[in-house]
């Protein structure tokens, strides 16, 4: 016997002003199974919840509809309220009469009629609800951090300091990431390596942190609390247990002139190398594509000969390592746009047109020029440098509509560094808008203009071309309204910050969503900014969107806090509104399997009685640890065996019928 109670909220005047709540309650009283309906000023407040509980007892209600604000707001509140009164929480439905009615329709009779229809739909649905139970999931209390830049380092340290084991997977030879490539940082001008390397040393030594450098994620299986991750540990040709990092090998390697990606190809490295002198781990790797031993059939072997500890092992192979983790922090960072779509700026055509990251290496004392700013073409000290902001950012026409956020500030910093190192050089910055939202940022920008005499020109550069021994930068000074040409020895493009080229592929492996620009999507732009949409996967740093170092560190710590919060629980509560199979109806066609984004559907053998015989038959079964409740399987199922609890066909069709009447 279904006994439904309907509770219509006034929400102060938010609902009651444009919806006649009494009329809505009255119309609800005539709906099938409704035995009680009332209204109250604030249903979500304590007295409101008590009112619901009392009514449940008094009228022996076994199902409840609350007509109030959006379920995104208070569905959980009301589920708990009915649960406390002894009703299964999934026998409660919310009719959204505020966001979808009172706030968007001013005409009271119209709003009232629609509110009544929405209540009728919720009543029709709840009449078909069945009690659901949440399950419990165990948690593997080990975290995986993908990416060893500042975001990954910070997240790993915070999790490890809370007493949980962390594995960092880093693609390059060393952790450190982009921050290790930077010279100084804004707005304090403190040295990037000086503040980063101590943290690198910390992760290197921490007993709870394992660094898998020169490694990549091969595959991710499993679900929140129970991920099974395969890590590809690329062959380094060096035994890390024996190597002391003495440097004999990389100093003596005869192949010396390979482009160093750490130095943005502006400098060289040998075939056996560490990314930079402070590398963690301080164990070199052999670049097999360029090593003489591998190219010429076992010739050379210089490194092997000079190694005092016999750490070189040419026979090492890639290893696939399978490990279990309870949570994953994605911290894969960014790259700068190649700007191939902008031939008019000449990056890649004229050697003296570089990106901001190149410029960092040219001012850095650990860089190829040992901190002397020299232009790449002829090593001449530049007397005039043009910085171009929004190079590839804020350009919908060529595919990137977003602002890269850090460029205004780092270009101001680079202009200052130029003026400090070469006082007689001129620094020009072409900008459209200057964005300095951050503590002490505006002041820093003003210093660039006032103290360092950086010349800011409002306008976007139209073209860069060579003339004699310099470059000409053409654009409009929009404040003058005149065409301008600036002669420059170097042009530094603040190239757009974009996710790593393989970000989307990695997201698919891990099972998280990403946006149009391939930045990973957070679960909620405001309230859940460090969680992904997939349980147990968290986001930190530029892989989620462009940001500067302080923001990255803050987000990394936040992600770590979320991981620690998860690990502090005995078990995880699983979602109750998941798919389930009616095995008797399942024909074993497995059309549901490929549409499941979580690989939650597996074949299962069952025994069935047919006449006198027992037969074996394969049907679908749902792994409730993996299922997230999207319902794609239920649509794909031709026999109607697959159902999505909480959103069954009967429930949705009942709603459709009710709103159409």
């Amino acid at each position, binding site marked *: 016997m279904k006994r439904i109670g309907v509770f219509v909220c006034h929400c102060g005047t938010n609902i009651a002003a444009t919806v006649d709540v009494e009329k809505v309650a009255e119309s609800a009283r005539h709906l099938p199974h409704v035995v009680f309906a009332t209204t109250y000023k604030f249903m979500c407040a304590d007295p409101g919840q008590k009112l619901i509980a009392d009514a449940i007892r008094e009228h022996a209600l076994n199902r409840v509809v609350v007509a109030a604000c959006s379920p995104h707001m208070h569905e959980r509140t009301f589920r708990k309220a009915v649960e406390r009164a002894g009703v299964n929480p999934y026998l409660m439905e919310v009719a959204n009469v505020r966001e979808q009615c009172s706030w968007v329709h001013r005409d009271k009779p119209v709003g009232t009629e629609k509110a009544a229809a929405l209540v009728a739909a919720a009543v029709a649905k709840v009449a078909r609800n069945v009690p659901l139970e949440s399950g419990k999931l165990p948690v593997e209390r080990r975290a995986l951090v993908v990416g060893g830049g500042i975001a990954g380092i910070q997240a790993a340290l915070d999790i490890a300091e809370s007493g949980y084991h962390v594995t960092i997977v880093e693609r390059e030879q060393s952790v450190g990431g982009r921050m290790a490539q930077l010279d100084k940082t804004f707005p304090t001008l403190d040295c990037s390596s000086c503040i980063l390397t101590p943290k690198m040393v910390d992760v290197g030594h921490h007993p709870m942190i394992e660094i898998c450098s020169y490694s990549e994620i091969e595959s991710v299986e499993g679900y929140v609390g129970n991920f099974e991750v395969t890590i590809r540990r690329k062959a380094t040709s060096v035994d890390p247990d024996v190597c002391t990092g003495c440097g004999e090998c990389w100093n003596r390697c005869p192949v010396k002139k390979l482009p160093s990606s750490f130095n943005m190809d502006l400098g060289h490295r040998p075939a056996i190398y560490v990314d930079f002198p402070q590398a963690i781990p301080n164990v070199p790797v052999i670049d097999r594509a360029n090593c003489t031993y591998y190219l010429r059939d076992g010739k050379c072997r210089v490194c092997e000969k000079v190694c005092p500890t016999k750490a070189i092992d040419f026979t090492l192979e890639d290893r696939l390592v399978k490990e279990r983790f309870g949570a994953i922090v994605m911290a894969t960072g960014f790259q700068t746009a190649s700007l191939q779509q902008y031939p008019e700026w000449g990056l890649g055509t004229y050697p003296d047109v570089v990106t901001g990251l190149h410029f960092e290496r040219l001012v850095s004392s650990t860089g190829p020029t040992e901190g002397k700013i020299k232009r790449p073409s002829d090593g001449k000290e530049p007397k005039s440098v043009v910085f171009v902001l929004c190079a590839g950012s804020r350009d919908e026409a060529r595919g990137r509509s977003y602002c890269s956020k850090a460029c205004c500030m780092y270009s101001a910093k680079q202009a200052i560094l130029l003026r400090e190192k070469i006082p007689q050089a001129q620094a020009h910055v072409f900008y459209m808008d200057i964005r300095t939202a951050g503590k002490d940022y505006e002041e820093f920008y003003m210093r660039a203009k006032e103290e360092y005499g950086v010349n800011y020109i409002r306008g976007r550069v139209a073209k860069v071309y*060579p003339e004699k021994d310099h470059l000409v930068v053409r654009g409009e000074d929009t404040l003058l309204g005149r065409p301008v040409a600036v002669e420059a020895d170097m042009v530094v493009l603040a190239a757009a910050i974009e996710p790593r080229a393989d970000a989307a592929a990695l997201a698919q492996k891990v099972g998280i969503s990403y946006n149009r620009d391939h930045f990973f999507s957070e679960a909620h732009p405001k309230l859940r900014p460090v969680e992904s949409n997939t349980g147990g996967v968290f986001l930190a740093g530029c892989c989620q969107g462009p940001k500067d170092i302080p923001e990255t560190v803050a987000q990394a710590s936040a992600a770590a806090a979320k991981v620690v919060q998860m690990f502090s629980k005995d078990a995880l509560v699983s979602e109750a509104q998941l798919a389930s199979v009616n095995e008797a109806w399942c024909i074993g066609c497995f059309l549901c399997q490929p549409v499941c984004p979580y690989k939650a559907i597996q074949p299962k053998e069952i025994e069935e009685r047919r006449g006198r015989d027992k037969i074996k038959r394969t049907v679908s079964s749902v792994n409730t640890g993996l299922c997230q409740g999207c319902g794609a399987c239920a649509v794909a199922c031709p026999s109607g065996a697959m159902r999505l609890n909480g959103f069954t066909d009967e429930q949705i069709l009942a709603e459709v019928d009710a709103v159409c009447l």
Partner: protein
Amino acid sequence: MKLAYYPGCSLCGTAREYNISTIKVSEKLGIELEEIPDWSCCGATSAHTSSPLLGVALPARNLAIAEEMGLDVAAPCAACYHNLSAARVKMDRDHLLRKRIEEIIDRKYRGKVKVLPLAEVILSRVGLDAVRDSLVHPLAGLKMAAYYGCLMVRPKGIVDFDDPENPTKLDQIMEAAGGEMVDWSHKTECCGASLSLTGTELCVDLVGRILERAAEEGAECIVTACPFCQANLDMRQAEAATKLKTDFRLPVLYFTQLLGIALGLPAGELGLDSHVVDPRPLLREKGLI
């Protein structure tokens, strides 16, 4: 391979040598050109700058005739290519416009034929290998700057011949013909030809900037596919040099003329005598004629 040929007004007048060399080179490369019967002017810039409908209707008449022939159109002139292509795209995008134009020109138009610049025909239908195979006098040692101008490459979507900022297709063809191409920055800067009769001073400035950059990169001549660019860069050259107080002398040739030489066509048939900056001394010096 057979194509409908749309020479356009310029190729029947000031750009005669482009027409002659186009026909000869096509013959040599096995491209059969059938002139669109009784073709009319495409309207150049004048039509669409004063009436959007006329700007589509004039080229549409020719497209409709080509459609009756059942042939894609080869248009060597950059301006004609641009106008025919623009009319085609506009009618493709706007069904109602197509209907109005059909009414105006009183002909059926279904949008079935493609419009190709001659360079594209050579590149994608003949192929560079075929060009290389037919070389008789490779243009060895001749340093050229390919100049594309505006109409061949802009705007994207209206024309789709090549990249609007750094086109390379003429370079590819001339390289296949054995020439040495200079990589330079002003391939697509406007030369102001549409202001040739009305804003002569402006034109001289623009021509000067372009030629100066080509000379600086070591080019000995310019190759182009646009009659307006050719005329403008050729005829305004002396004035531009005087204004810039330099003395560059860069012959400005149609790519078909030089391709003709490379394919072994008699120099006398390529209209080499019709330029203001005479290319023959340079070509003789390089042993090409």
